[in-house]
């Protein structure tokens, strides 16, 4: 109580108002710098997370020939399925932008799903130890893609909501930070494919 009295006496009203204004300006400045840095960090984490997605897409890409070769050993006449997988795979190889990669990887996913349906008709194939192993690896990779995709979308959501919100939206426009695109999964791709043994 005594402190307040001393404070009021030693400071003139004009000084106090000035201090408060400076204080507000400093706070606004800090929040702008913080907002900008935050934007940069979030943008970087979207990129980093997309890198994780790409790694897993690549891992799947590399596993396809093995799977196809094994299935062909038992079901060589299912040419249509093999063709659709080959098409999707080469489309993925040619994809450069995020949108193209998303579309191509969804195509690969549905082609592989069809392959697994075909597999159900070949009990000998399902009993093959090597095939067994490949399917575990494939469904593991599919699940990794789903996980990294989820984390990518989370990162995009964090970033986008920051970009669109006031006052960061002013900074985002000033420095050219636009919203990023989500990785929309193909319908029914939320669950990793499983073959029942």
């Amino acid at each position, binding site marked *: 109580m005594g402190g*307040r009295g001393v*404070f009021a006496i030693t400071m003139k009203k004009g000084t*106090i108002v000035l*201090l*408060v204004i400076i*204080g*507000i300006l*400093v*706070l606004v400045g*800090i*929040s702008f710098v913080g907002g900008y840095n935050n934007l940069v960090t979030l943008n970087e984490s979207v990129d980093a997370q997309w890198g*994780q997605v790409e790694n*897993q897409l690549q891992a799947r890409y590399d596993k396809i020939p093995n799977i196809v070769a094994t299935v062909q050993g038992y079901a060589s006449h299912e040419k249509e399925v093999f063709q659709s997988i080959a098409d999707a795979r080469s489309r993925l190889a040619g994809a450069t932008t995020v949108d193209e990669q998303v579309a191509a990887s969804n195509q690969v996913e549905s082609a592989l799903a069809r392959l697994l349906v075909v597999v159900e008709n070949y009990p000998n194939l399902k009993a093959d130890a090597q095939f*067994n*192993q*490949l399917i*575990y*690896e494939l*469904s*593991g*990779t599919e*699940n*990794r*893609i*789903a*996980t*990294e995709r*989820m984390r990518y979308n*989370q990162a995009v959501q*964090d970033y986008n*909501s*920051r970009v669109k*919100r006031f006052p960061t939206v002013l900074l985002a426009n000033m420095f050219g930070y636009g919203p990023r695109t989500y990785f929309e999964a193909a319908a029914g791709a*939320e*669950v*990793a494919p*499983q073959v*029942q*043994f």
Partner: protein
Amino acid sequence: MKNRTVILVILLLSLTVCALSPIPGTNVHDFANILNNDYLLDSRIETLYQKTGVEMAVVTVPDLDNQSIEKYAVKLFEDWGIGKKREDKGLLLLISLEPREMRIEVGYGLEGALPDSFVGINLQQLVGPALANNDISGLVEFVGVLEERIIQQGDTATIPDSQNINNITRYEDEESRNPLGGIILFVVIALLVILDFRFTGGMIVGAILNSMLRGGSSRSGGSRKSSGRNRYGGGGRSGGGGASGKW
């Protein structure tokens, strides 16, 4: 008064982030009450930890909240932070009663030593029958198989001298990079806050706190645990590696 409400709301929000908490003092978290003799399994996992530094949690749940077991496992793994941050050498064996499913989730750092097919085939051969026959020995054996493989591949984790090392939070690095700048910033902010409370009754601080509360911080929480011996909470993560099955 208003500020106190804000703080209370923040506290409540951070509580609801993690619905399922680890049972302190054990590696086996039998929420569905389906494991007999789980001290056998617990001490086997403790041996695994002492030999390799790998943290493993066995968790049974009555149901999966209408999610796939894969999603549930990834979330639980990240919530609990099994394994140390960046090393990510943790394992989670998740068993659900309804539906009867199981999953071994492998942390990022162990994916090299434990390929999906290896853990998948062993899960199917050892854990599945053990659960169906209500016999814990298959699960104990499973831990042994994983341990052998981790040691054989030379993929052990560092074993901390003191358990306190697990108290590191996920944002530790970002926060402690520049202590001097932090102190100056703190002093400036403290001064401003004092001025604000003196002349406006804390209006500005209240407004800022409010906007911060609305403005995200959606990824906080999760890795902070502080009850009992800290087995988890190291911030380890998994990326969907591992294998699932039915039992």
